[in-house]
């Protein structure tokens, strides 16, 4: 079953995305900041990461930089889910291997799920059914 890691400090957002993804059939891990996110990543390598930028303790860009250093993580697709979306930020993130960028106020949770599907395909429903 495909695993998604959500690194997002805003609990409402995190829960909404989690709910939608689980409904769709994904396995979801969550982390409330970058630090926790890195730990969770190491415990169980995800198939895709949804990453916020501005977070306490460790922000999204720091997470990306850490991931770049580790061959094990540098290939995991990352979709940024942020309040901001300035072109300079997007460019900077792309240089750090980010696949896509979602501005929260311009999307809704359903569209986030659609993006996930675009990048890694539907969840492995068979596994899901077995579960």
């Amino acid at each position, binding site marked *: 079953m495909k695993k998604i890691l959500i690194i997002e400090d805003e609990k409402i957002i995190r829960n*909404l995305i989690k709910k939608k993804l689980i409904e769709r059939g994904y396995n979801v891990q969550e982390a409330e900041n970058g630090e926790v996110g890195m730990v969770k990543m190491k415990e169980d390598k995800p198939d895709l990461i949804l990453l916020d930028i501005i977070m306490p303790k460790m922000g999204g860009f720091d997470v990306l930089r850490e991931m770049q250093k580790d061959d094990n993580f540098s290939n995991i697709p990352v979709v940024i889910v942020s309040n901001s979306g*300035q072109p300079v930020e997007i460019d900077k993130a792309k240089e750090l291997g980010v696949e896509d960028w979602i501005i*929260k106020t311009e999307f*809704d949770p*359903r569209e986030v799920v659609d993006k996930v599907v675009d990048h890694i395909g539907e969840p492995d429903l068979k596994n899901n059914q077995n579960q």
Partner: protein
Amino acid sequence: MTEKETNPKNDMVDDLEDLKNYTDELADFLPVAFCVVNPLNCILEVNNFFEVLSGYEKVEAVGKRVENLFLEREEINSLIEEVKKEKGKVEKELTLITKKEETVPVDVSALARESEDGFVGFFLTIMDVTEKREIEVKMERELAKKTKELEEKAKQMEDSRSALLNILEDVDKSYKEAEKERSKTAAIIENFIDGMMFFGADHVLSIVNPKAEDFFDIKARDVTGRDLRELSTFPTLKSLINFIKGDGKIADLFREELKINEDFYLEITTTGIEEDGEHLGTLIHIHDITREKRIEKIKSEFVSVAAHQLRTPLSGIKWTLETFLEEVSEEKGKLNEDEETLIRKAYDANERMVNLVNDLLNVSRIEEGRYIYEPEVVDILDFLNPILETYKEAIENKDNLSFKVNKVKDSFPKVKIDAEKIGIVVQNFLDNAIKYTDEGEVVLSINMIDDNIRISVQDEGVGIPEEQQERLFNKFFRAENVIRKDVEGSGLGLFIAKNIVEAHNGEIGFESTEGEGSIFYFTLPIHKGKEKGFIEEF
């Protein structure tokens, strides 16, 4: 004769007779009136000239009392008295009365005659001095005239002298005043809080005040007397000189911003100085705006951060409501219609809040000068069609409103634009047209004007009051009639649109009549292949 010779007495008489004749002839010949007077003042003898002068015949004159001949009785009497007493010669100026009772100015001389018996009378000569007097009077007059003239000349000279002195005094005074003014002006320039430089008509720098020295780290003595070309070789002055140097002369600048480096901004104004139509030179006024720029930056950053912070709860609300509504539609019966309407209203209000925050963010980016980002070459129709599709639906859903797209051609030259931003402009025009039109038609037209593509949106809406039209593109401006109408709006849309269009070297404008409708338009220069992208500087 012989007889006479022989008779001495006869000889003597003859001699006397000769003498008398001689004296008579002499007297008659003399050009002066002459008479002989006895001690009783009676005339005994006169000569010819006396007759001519007085008009009296000899026979009339002889026996006349001499004092009756003159106007001045007292004078003649005193003269006679004097001659009798002194027995010598006495002279006086008197006036003779002629037989015709005319008066003649005369000089009178009397000479006493004496014999052994004493005083026997006197001779009197009377000389006509009419001419002499006339000459004298004339000369006196002439003299008086000349004297007067001389006096006048002297007075004139005196006047000129004092006038000259006055002038000199005035000149001295004006010189002192000018000197005072000059020092005052110099002191003002020296102590002026802003930088000042003055270039003469030949573009040679003549004045640099201390503040300008500070700004450019120069010394007046090193830079004055040099022209623009020479000055541009000074590393610290180069940017200023390039900034003010126009087409062969100093450009007209009004409060133009000159960035020296990240921490130093100046505002430059140039003023041509003219006197009686003659160009004397150009004054460069240099104002430090670093502090303003810093505050502006802090403000922009604040707005940017605040807007980001606002977005977080707004997206939380948005996502929650969205999910809520979705589930309501899935599980009917959980909420009744009124409840669903309320949630929908909350969602819409939140959306407006999101838009407002987005507008604020855009404005702060415009002010930071980093708004237009990625220009790309696009076909205007490919770019517009998806936007128009969305709006066609939205407009046709509104009662009494119709939408028409008016293309003069099937294809247009390509433009190089930041498509997302130009999209914002088109959407802003269409949003306004829909918002402020209750009934009628909205027409979007695309056409070509010279080397520009012109896109316009015409409505039949409320229009803009004439007196408020010039403020329409101001930040946060909303016309009174639309505020009354209570339609949502931040007053930022057209401000953002104007900045976007101008960053693309396009023009934005409108025509409007209150109560009849408006037409808003903007232009985009067509992309000419090789030409360097016109917004790459962003």
